[in-house]
C-alpha cells in the first residue's frame, strides 16, 4: 500500500478515522471517507490519470468538479463497469476499483501515443475528410484502426445488475446548488413558508464555501453552513437532496434531476436503487449553480500537474491533499491569487506568479517579497514535462523577454464562466458582460431565475444578497408571503480581470481536452470556412464530449472571434441542450426493462390456464393462452389440430376477455352507433346482436366487432383486442367533439367482464349445466345472433351472446371478471361428460381462417369494406364516419386487391403468409405483383394448408391457378384462388 505522500497532516473535510483502501490500475492506495477518487489520487501523488482521446497524450486532473474533461476512468468492474466516470465526482468507498482509459498496454507505456506522430490526420474535420476515402478502405482499414486508437472507456458488456427508479416531486421553489447563493435562497424561501427542494450534486453542502471559506454574519463559513442547515432542517417543507444534479428544464415548470442514491457504495444495499430520476414540478426555480473557472489555452496546457487554480484550492482546503509542492500560478484576474494564499497557508512553496494583467496590487507585491517568490508580468507560453508532471514553465514576459520557472504544479485561472446551461435550455442565448468577460443568462425559461455566480455576481456578499432576494421573490411568486428575515452578510472580494484566452507558442495548445481539440484546429476550421459556431462545433467536435465543453466552449468561441476579427458576442454561442451532466440511460428507463419493460395484462383465467400447462403468447400487453399441449404431443401443430377437431366434433372454450368491451347507454345510443358504424344499429331488436364494421374518416376500415342491444337504451359492443384502447378514444371523440348533441354515454368495461367463447355441436349441452335451468337455450328461445342477460346456476348474472367466430354452434358468455377463473374451472367440470377441450388463440385462428372471417392481417389499415367482402353492409340511408371518402375513385376501383381464399395446388405443401401472388407463368416483379397471402393455417378439417389473401380482382378469379412467390424464404409454388369460406359455407352449423 502506498502512503498518502501528498496529504497534509491536518485539516480538510475528510474523516481521518475512516481510512479507505482502493485500487487504481491494479495498484492499491488508501484515502479517507470524504475523499473523491480524484482527491485520493492527488493525496497519493498520482499525477497521470488517463490518456487523451485522439493523441493518447498523458493527462492528469484539471478540475475538482463535474466539469472535468481529463480525469475519466472506468469505475467498478464486470457488469457494473462504468466508462468515462469523472474521478472528480466519484466518491471514494472501501474497495473502489478504477482503471485508466485509452491506454495499451499500460498507462505509463502507451503504444498508441504514436498517434501524436500522425497528428496531421487527426486534425479538425478528420471524420469528414476521411469519409471522402474509398468506402472499402474506410470500412476495412480506417474505421477499425480509429476505433482501436481513439475513443473513451469501455462500457460493461453484461446487463446492468442494478435497479433504477423514477419519481415525481412537487414544490413551490426548486433550487439548483447549495453554495452561498443557493443556501441563502433556501433560507429566504423556506422562511417565507414555501415548499422548497434544494438539489446539490456534491455529497457535501456549501459549494465554494467548502473550498474558499469566508466570513458570513461574522461566522466562519463552516459555522454559518452548520447554522443554516440546522435552520433549514427545522423547516418541514424544505427538502435537501445531496448527490442530486438538476440537469434539465422542461415545459410547464418541470425539472429533471438525477439522484445518485447509492453510487457512493460498492453496490446498492439490497432492495435499494442505484440512481433515481426525479421529475420535479415547481412554481419557481432558482439556479444557483455557480460559475466554472476557465482555463487559458497555451502550449502544453494539458500536461499533468496543470490544474485550475480554484481546483487546487479545493484539493488543499477541502481534502488536505497537495497537487504539487512548488506551485506556479498563471492568472489574468484577482481571484487566482487566492490559490497563492491557500498554498502558503498549507506550507507549500510558491515558485512564481505569472500575471497577465498590466499591474498587481501592492498587497500582492508584499506577499511575494515576504514569501520569496517573483511576480512575472506576462503569459505562460509553454510547459516542459510529461507523464510525471510539470517540470519547467516558459514565460513570455510583457515587453518580449522570456523567463523560465521551475515548478511541479501550475495553477491556472482565466476568469469564471457562469454556469448558463439550465437558464439557456429553452433556446435561450446568454448575453455577454464585458466587465467579467463572460456570458451571463439573458432571461431564462418561465419561472426560472439565476442567482449569485451563475448570474455573474462573483463576490461572496453579492452571492448571498442575490440568492436571498431570488429565494424571497420566488416564494412570493408562489404565493408564500411569510417573513424572510434578514439577508446573510459578507464582504465582496475584488475580481479585476484582463481577458486572456490563448497564448501563442510552440506545441499543441488544447481548447477541449476531452476531445483533443487544439487552438490550431479552430484556426483550421475557420480557414476551411466553418466559421459559424454551430459549424465550428461539429467540424472540430469542440464541446461535444461528455463534459459538453464546460471548460472549453467559451475559449473556443474567443479564439474563433480572434481569427475572424469579430467580437465574442458577435461570434455567439451554440444552442444549449440538456442534460447538464451525463445521465445513465438506465435511469431514464427506470423499472421499464426486461419483463417489466411494459405492464403485463393477464386474462381472468390466466392462472387456471397456467395450471393446465398452456403456452402463452404476447398479444400487445396481454398474455394469452396459445395452445394447451398434452403429454405425448410432439409439436404445437399436433396440439392445435387436436383442439380444433375437439371443438368441431364436441365442445371447447377459449378465454376471449381481451376483446375491448364498451357499454353504450342513452336514448340516442342507436343513432350514435349508426354514425360510427357503416351498418345500422338503431333498428336492431332488443335481445339481438349484429356484426359491425367501423371506418376511419378517410374511408378505410378501422375496426370490427359485434354489438348487442341489451335494452332499448343500452347497447354493448366489442372491439378487437388490438384496438380496444383506440376505439374507446375514437368513440369518445365522436361523442364529445363531433356529435355533442346526442344523449349517449360510453363506459369501457373491458376489464369488468371475463368473456369466454364456447363452441362446438355440444355447446348447448354444456351450457345447460352452467345456466339456470329456467333459461330457454333452445334454437327458438335463443336463436343465432341472440343476446341477453341470463342467470347462472348459483345466481350470478351473465351476459350470453349466440355469436360464432368458428363457424360452429357457439355462444360467448360474459361474467364479472372476478368470476372468470371460476368459470373456466366450472366449464371443465361441467363439460367433462362432453369431452370439453380448452383451446387457445392458435385454434381460434385456425377456425376463423377455415370459416373465412377477416381479422388483424386483413384489417390492415389499407383495406376497404368492399375489399373485405363486406361492401354490402355499407348503408346508403344514413351518414357515418368514413362514408364520403370511402366513395373515392381509387377506393372503389374494380382492380383492388380483395380478400379471397388460397390453397396450394400440391395438397401436401405448406402455405406461408407474406408470399406474393403473381399470375401463372410470369416472372415475379413489382409490375405483376397482384397481392399477397395474409393469413394461413393448417386446416385439420380439410387436412391441408389453407389461407386468405388480398389479391387483385380476387373474387372474380375463383378457381384460377396463380403463382405464390416467397423470396424471403426462397419458395415458389402454385396456388388456387378459392372461396374464402372453406368450412360450412351455407352456415348451417352455426345456426343449428
Amino acid at each position, binding site marked *: 500500500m502506498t502512503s498518502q505522500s501528498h496529504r497534509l497532516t491536518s485539516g480538510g473535510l475528510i474523516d481521518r478515522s475512516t481510512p479507505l483502501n482502493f485500487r487504481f490500475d491494479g495498484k492499491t492506495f488508501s484515502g479517507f471517507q470524504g475523499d473523491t477518487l480524484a482527491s485520493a489520487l492527488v493525496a497519493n501523488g498520482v499525477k497521470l490519470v488517463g490518456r487523451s482521446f485522439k493523441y493518447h497524450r498523458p493527462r492528469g486532473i484539471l478540475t475538482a468538479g463535474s466539469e472535468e474533461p481529463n480525469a475519466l476512468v472506468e469505475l467498478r468492474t464486470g457488469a457494473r463497469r462504468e466508462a468515462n466516470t469523472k474521478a472528480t465526482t466519484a466518491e471514494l468507498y472501501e474497495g473502489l476499483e478504477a482503471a485508466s482509459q485509452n491506454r495499451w498496454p499500460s498507462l505509463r507505456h502507451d503504444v498508441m501515443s504514436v498517434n501524436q506522430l500522425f497528428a496531421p490526420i487527426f486534425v479538425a474535420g478528420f471524420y469528414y475528410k476521411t469519409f471522402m476515402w474509398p468506402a472499402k478502405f474506410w470500412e476495412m482499414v480506417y474505421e477499425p484502426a480509429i476505433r482501436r486508437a481513439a475513443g473513451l472507456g469501455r462500457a460493461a458488456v453484461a446487463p446492468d445488475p442494478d435497479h433504477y427508479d423514477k419519481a*415525481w416531486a412537487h414544490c413551490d421553489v426548486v433550487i439548483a446548488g447549495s453554495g452561498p447563493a443557493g443556501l441563502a435562497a433556501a433560507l429566504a424561501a423556506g422562511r417565507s413558508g414555501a415548499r422548497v427542494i434544494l438539489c446539490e450534486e456534491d455529497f457535501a453542502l456549501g459549494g465554494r464555501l467548502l473550498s474558499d471559506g469566508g466570513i458570513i454574519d461574522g461566522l466562519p463559513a463552516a459555522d454559518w453552513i452548520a447554522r443554516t442547515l440546522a435552520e433549514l432542517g427545522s423547516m418541514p417543507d424544505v427538502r435537501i437532496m445531496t448527490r442530486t444534479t438538476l440537469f434539465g428544464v*422542461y*415545459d*410547464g*415548470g*418541470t425539472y429533471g434531476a438525477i439522484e445518485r442514491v447509492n453510487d457512493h457504495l460498492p453496490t446498492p444495499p439490497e432492495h435499494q436503487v442505484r440512481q433515481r430520476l426525479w*421529475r420535479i*414540478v415547481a412554481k419557481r426555480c432558482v439556479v444557483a449553480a455557480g460559475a466554472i473557472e476557465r482555463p487559458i489555452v497555451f502550449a502544453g496546457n494539458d500536461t499533468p500537474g496543470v490544474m485550475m487554480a480554484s481546483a487546487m484550492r479545493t484539493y488543499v482546503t477541502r481534502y488536505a491533499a497537495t497537487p504539487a509542492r512548488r506551485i506556479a500560478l498563471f492568472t489574468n484576474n484577482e481571484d487566482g491569487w487566492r490559490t497563492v494564499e491557500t498554498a502558503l497557508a498549507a506550507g507549500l512553496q510558491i515558485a512564481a506568479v505569472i500575471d497577465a494583467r498590466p499591474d498587481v496590487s501592492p498587497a500582492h507585491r508584499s506577499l511575494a517579497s515576504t514569501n520569496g517568490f517573483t511576480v512575472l508580468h506576462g503569459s505562460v507560453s509553454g510547459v516542459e514535462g510529461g507523464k510525471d508532471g510539470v517540470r519547467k514553465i516558459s514565460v513570455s514576459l510583457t515587453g518580449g523577454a522570456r523567463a523560465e520557472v521551475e515548478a511541479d504544479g501550475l495553477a491556472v485561472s482565466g476568469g469564471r464562466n457562469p454556469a448558463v446551461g439550465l437558464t439557456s435550455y*429553452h433556446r435561450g442565448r446568454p448575453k455577454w458582460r464585458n466587465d467579467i468577460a463572460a456570458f451571463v443568462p439573458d432571461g431564462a425559461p*418561465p419561472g426560472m431565475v439565476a442567482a449569485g455566480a451563475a448570474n455573474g455576481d462573483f463576490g461572496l456578499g453579492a452571492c448571498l444578497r442575490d440568492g436571498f432576494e431570488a429565494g424571497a421573490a420566488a416564494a412570493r411568486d408562489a404565493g408564500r408571503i411569510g417573513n424572510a428575515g434578514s439577508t446573510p452578510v459578507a464582504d465582496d472580494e475584488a475580481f479585476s480581470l484582463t481577458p486572456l484566452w490563448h497564448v501563442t507558442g510552440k506545441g499543441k495548445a488544447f481548447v477541449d481536452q476531452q476531445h483533443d481539440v487544439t487552438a490550431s484546429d479552430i484556426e483550421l476550421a475557420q480557414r476551411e470556412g466553418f466559421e459559424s459556431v454551430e459549424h465550428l462545433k461539429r467540424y472540430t467536435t469542440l464541446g461535444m464530449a461528455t463534459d459538453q465543453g464546460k471548460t472549453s466552449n467559451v475559449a473556443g468561441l474567443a479564439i474563433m472571434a480572434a481569427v475572424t476579427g469579430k467580437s465574442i458576442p458577435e461570434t455567439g454561442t451554440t444552442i444549449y441542450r440538456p442534460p447538464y451532466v451525463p445521465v445513465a440511460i438506465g435511469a431514464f428507463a427506470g423499472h421499464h426493462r426486461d419483463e417489466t419493460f411494459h405492464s403485463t395484462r393477464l386474462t381472468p383465467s390466466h392462472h387456471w390456464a397456467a395450471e393446465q400447462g398452456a403456452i402463452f403468447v404476447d398479444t400487445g400487453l396481454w398474455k394469452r393462452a396459445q395452445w394447451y399441449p398434452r403429454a405425448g404431443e410432439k409439436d404445437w401443430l399436433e396440439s392445435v389440430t387436436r383442439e380444433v377437431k375437439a371443438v368441431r366434433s364436441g365442445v371447447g372454450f377459449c378465454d376471449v376477455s381481451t376483446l375491448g368491451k364498451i357499454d353504450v347507454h342513452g336514448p340516442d345510443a342507436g343513432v350514435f352507433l349508426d354514425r360510427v358504424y357503416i351498418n345500422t344499429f338503431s333498428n336492431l331488436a332488443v335481445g339481438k346482436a349484429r356484426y359491425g364494421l367501423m371506418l376511419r*374518416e*378517410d374511408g378505410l376500415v378501422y375496426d370490427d366487432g359485434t354489438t348487442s342491444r341489451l335494452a332499448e337504451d343500452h347497447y354493448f359492443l366489442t372491439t378487437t383486442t388490438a384496438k380496444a*384502447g383506440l376505439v*374507446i*378514444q375514437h368513440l*369518445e*371523440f365522436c*361523442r*364529445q*367533439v*363531433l*356529435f*355533442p*348533441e*346526442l*344523449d349517449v*354515454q360510453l363506459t*369501457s368495461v373491458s376489464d369488468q367482464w371475463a368473456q369466454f367463447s364456447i363452441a362446438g355441436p355440444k355447446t348447448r349441452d354444456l351450457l345447460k349445466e352452467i345456466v339456470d335451468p329456467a333459461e330457454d337455450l333452445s334454437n327458438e328461445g335463443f336463436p343465432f345472433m341472440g343476446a341477453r342477460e341470463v342467470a347462472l346456476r348459483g345466481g350470478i348474472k351473465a351476459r350470453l351472446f349466440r355469436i360464432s367466430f368458428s363457424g360452429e354452434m357457439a355462444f360467448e358468455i360474459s361474467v364479472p371478471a372476478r368470476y372468470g377463473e371460476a368459470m373456466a374451472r366450472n366449464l371443465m367440470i361441467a363439460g367433462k361428460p362432453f369431452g370439453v377441450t380448452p383451446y387457445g388463440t392458435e385454434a381460434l385462428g385456425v377456425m376463423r381462417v377455415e370459416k373465412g372471417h377477416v381479422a388483424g392481417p386483413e384489417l390492415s389499415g389499407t383495406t376497404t369494406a368492399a375489399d373485405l367482402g363486406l361492401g354490402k353492409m355499407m348503408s346508403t340511408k344514413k*351518414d357515418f364516419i368514413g362514408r*364520403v*371518402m370511402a*366513395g*373515392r375513385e381509387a377506393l372503389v376501383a374494380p382492380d383492388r386487391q380483395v380478400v379471397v381464399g388460397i390453397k396450394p395446388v400440391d395438397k401436401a405443401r405448406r402455405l406461408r403468409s407474406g408470399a406474393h401472388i403473381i399470375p401463372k407463368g410470369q416472372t415475379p416483379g413489382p409490375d405483376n405483383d397482384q397481392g399477397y397471402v395474409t393469413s394461413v393455417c393448417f386446416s385439420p378439417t380439410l387436412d391441408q394448408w389453407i389461407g386468405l389473401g388480398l389479391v387483385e380482382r380476387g373474387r372474380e378469379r375463383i378457381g384460377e391457378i396463380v403463382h405464390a412467390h416467397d423470396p424471403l424464404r426462397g419458395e415458389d409454388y402454385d396456388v388456387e384462388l378459392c372461396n374464402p369460406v372453406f368450412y360450412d359455407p351455407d352456415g348451417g352449423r352455426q345456426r343449428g
Partner: protein
Amino acid sequence: MRIVCPFCGERELGEFSYLGDAKPVRPAADAGEEAVYEYVYLRDNVAGVMSENWYHGGGCRSWLKVTRNTLTHEISAVEAAAGAGARQVAK
C-alpha cells in the same frame, strides 16, 4: 408539458394524447366530397397559437380543446369539448 384538465386539474403530458388541429368542423352529410376531403386532409401548420384536440385518456377520458403556442408550448386556455362530462349534453 402540463395541461390543466377542467375536470381533473393540472396533470402531466403523459396522461394525454394528441389528435391535432381543433379548427376543422366535420361537414354536414350533404356537404359533398370536396368539403370532406378538406376536413380529412387539409390542416394548417401553425407556428404560433393554435387550438388543438387533446384526449385525457390517463384521467377522465374527456376530449379537451387546448390553446397552445407551438413555438413555446405555452398553454393559454383549456376547455372541455362540447360533449365532455357526464351532464354536459348540449341540446
